[in-house]
């Protein structure tokens, strides 16, 4: 069940703070698993599995760097890892749970000027487009014979065949998007209205109260 975007923002910020304040492994594990449950309610388990497996690589790197340069203390390392995984799940949940259009609306309701609120949701909107574009470029380049699909080394050697067009194209795309906005007579300073004003529903109050209860539990216990 998708929460109200305003609630989701509060939730995100609240737990972002908690996960850095909390140092007890037990509680951290509890929070981390909670994030996983949130994430699973929004995305398919395949997607969750895929994202989680992708996280293995950076987490190994983080682990090695910390062992080499910071500390070999096992408790410390576990805390670092839990925070990393927890945050990754938390942000992924947020990406799924909040519609970019509603995000603007939510930020505006928190008295953030429309101009900036819109920019945040714009960046957020461009993420999937970036992904789609790089896949298309990859397909086009291997189809003309650039050996991006023949192992890690040759992929790295020819990575410019994706990066360069991607930079050019994202510039192009953002220009086009600016044109599209102009075509709709968009003006960042003009008064705004919204088709569906945000309304808090029963399950949003549930979200808020559960967030507060967990918050209090962790602080008090």
């Amino acid at each position, binding site marked *: 069940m998708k929460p109200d975007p305003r609630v989701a923002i509060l939730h995100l910020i609240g737990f972002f703070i908690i996960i850095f304040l909390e140092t007890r492994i037990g509680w951290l594990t509890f929070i981390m698993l909670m994030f996983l449950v949130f994430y699973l309610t929004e995305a398919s388990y395949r997607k969750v599995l895929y994202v989680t497996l992708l996280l293995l690589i950076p987490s190994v790197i983080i682990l090695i760097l910390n062992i080499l340069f910071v500390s070999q203390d096992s408790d410390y390392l576990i805390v670092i890892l839990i925070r990393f995984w927890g945050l990754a799940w938390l942000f992924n949940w947020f990406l799924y749970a909040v519609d970019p*259009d509603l995000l603007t609306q939510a930020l505006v309701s928190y008295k953030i000027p429309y101009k900036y609120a819109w920019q945040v949701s714009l960046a957020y909107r461009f993420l999937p487009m970036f992904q789609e574009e790089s896949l298309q470029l990859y397909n086009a380049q291997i189809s003309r014979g650039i050996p991006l699909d023949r192992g890690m080394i040759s992929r790295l050697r020819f990575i410019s065949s994706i990066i360069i067009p991607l930079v050019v194209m994202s510039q192009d795309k953002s220009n*086009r998007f600016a044109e599209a906005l*102009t075509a*709709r007579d968009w003006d960042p300073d003009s*008064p705004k209205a919204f088709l569906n004003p945000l309304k808090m529903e029963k399950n949003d109050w549930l979200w808020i109260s559960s967030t507060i209860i967990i918050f209090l539990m962790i602080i008090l216990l």
Partner: protein
Amino acid sequence: MSTYSKSSIKSLELRDFSISYSKHSNAISNAHFTFLQGKSYLLTGTTASGKSSLLRFLKGFIPLFYPATITGEILLNGSQISIEEFWEYQGCFGFLFQDPALQTVGSTVEKDLAFGLENKGFPSSHIQNRIMEISQELGIEELLERKTSTLSGGEISLVSLASILILNPPFLLLDEFAAFLDYPARKKVLRAIKSHQDEKHTVVIVSHQLEDTLDLVDEIIVMDKGEIVLHTARTQILEANYSILQNYLNLPEIFRLGIPLCEKQGVKPVFRSAKELYSLLRRENIE
């Protein structure tokens, strides 16, 4: 239907009009355009002929996104105005892109349609009414709840058309709109445009494909290298200089062969379909 633009454009004239992006070459050079309210125009020609530049200028993309030097006189409803004054009329122009997917800004169809009016600050009930009106006009009521990313090519073209028509611009500009659509989808979109066009709405279509746009317009303007090589009423297009048609246009074969056939038989080449050409030639033969 409500209009949102400040004023109406009864006639728009561009005299000795030039646009140049660099010092060396002109995108449009000393051309003369006249657009009248309630008429529809097909702007066609070779790739770099300046037709897109004209549309971009009208909607204000030039010089906002493309720095360029613009010279010439602008006559709006008969009186001369400066380029800066002309910008005030931007809201009168609705612009549709070649790739409709680039035009969507909302995540669902309903939100995408609402975007333009939300931006103008209209109350929610008004926006809702307009969405219903426009989606009924274009027959897309069933798409309203859909995510824009899941729409097919034909559907997204209709949605992006609706997203512009909802603002009810008196002047509609289509830049190679929906050029990638297949035949049935394209026919549907073009039909929607045709039924929207009336004495209050002016339409300018830029296209290479003549088969299906020819029927849609009143006048045809052919451009090459920034100059107008032909400006004629649709009904007279086939009587125009054949070499112009042959060189600059993707003329369907029926015209490529039909026009010289008519000329040899000494009949006026006034036909649009195989049947008309056939009866034209046969009648001549029977006599």
